[in-house]
């Protein structure tokens, strides 16, 4: 699709920019715009709830938290550290990757009808979710209706984490 190409270019540019910029504050802002672009991509793909979470958490909360942290510390890294070359990681990680690729060979093909993931309960959701929940998006119906308690508890966990962060970073603390 032609629509997605400029957005994807924007996404790659913001991601690269956030990595390459020296100043940490501008890196935070670029990460914010990265979140905006990413949530636009989600919205374009039709995953509206994911887009919403990305906008709220990625672009809103994360930016503010990063900034709060930066104001507590210094925004420029003036000591250049050179960590020792991690030979174990350089050799070990590709081997692990090979192992994972070998394991992935046994997975069912993408969109396979007879795979376990799409034989159990997914057809039930697909057939009945509109009638039972009157929610047009199946993913939203599963998250917000069939597993609403699950989602609710998750929200509580995230909320608690947010309050904890706010308490730790509180102004004039100690």
């Amino acid at each position, binding site marked *: 699709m032609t629509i997605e190409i400029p957005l994807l270019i924007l996404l790659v540019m913001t991601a690269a920019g956030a990595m390459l910029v020296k100043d940490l504050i*501008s890196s935070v802002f670029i990460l914010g*715009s990265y979140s905006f672009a990413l949530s636009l991509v989600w919205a374009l793909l039709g995953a509206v709830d994911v887009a919403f979470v990305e906008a*709220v958490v990625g672009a809103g909360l994360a930016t503010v938290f990063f900034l709060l942290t930066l104001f507590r510390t210094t925004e420029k890294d003036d000591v250049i550290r050179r960590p020792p070359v991690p030979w174990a990681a350089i050799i070990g990680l590709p081997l692990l990757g090979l192992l994972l690729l070998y394991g992935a060979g046994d997975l069912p093909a993408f969109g396979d009808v007879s795979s376990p993931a799409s034989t159990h309960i997914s057809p039930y959701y697909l057939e009945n979710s509109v009638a039972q929940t009157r929610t047009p998006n199946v993913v939203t119906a599963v998250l917000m209706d069939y597993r609403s308690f699950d989602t609710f508890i998750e929200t509580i966990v995230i909320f608690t984490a947010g309050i904890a962060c706010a308490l730790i970073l509180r102004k004039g603390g100690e």
Partner: protein
Amino acid sequence: MSSFFVFVLVTLTMLMLVYLYRVIRGPSVFDRVLGLNGISTKAIVLLVLLGTMFERVDMFVDISTGYALLNLVGALAIAKFLEERGTSEK
């Protein structure tokens, strides 16, 4: 009409690139804040536009309302903190 919408969408994305330049280059912190704010204004408009294209405006308007409110809160927080700290850079 749909191709017109695609045109508007691509134009808006290009404009976001311009603001991205300001965010990356901008000599002072405030330039970056302004650039980010410009990008998010575009994002709000883009979301409503996407909703119109998919004929699901009701769903997308909710996101863009959330976007707008969060953008307001975030920008005010940033401004408040920059004001208290003063700037160390020019």
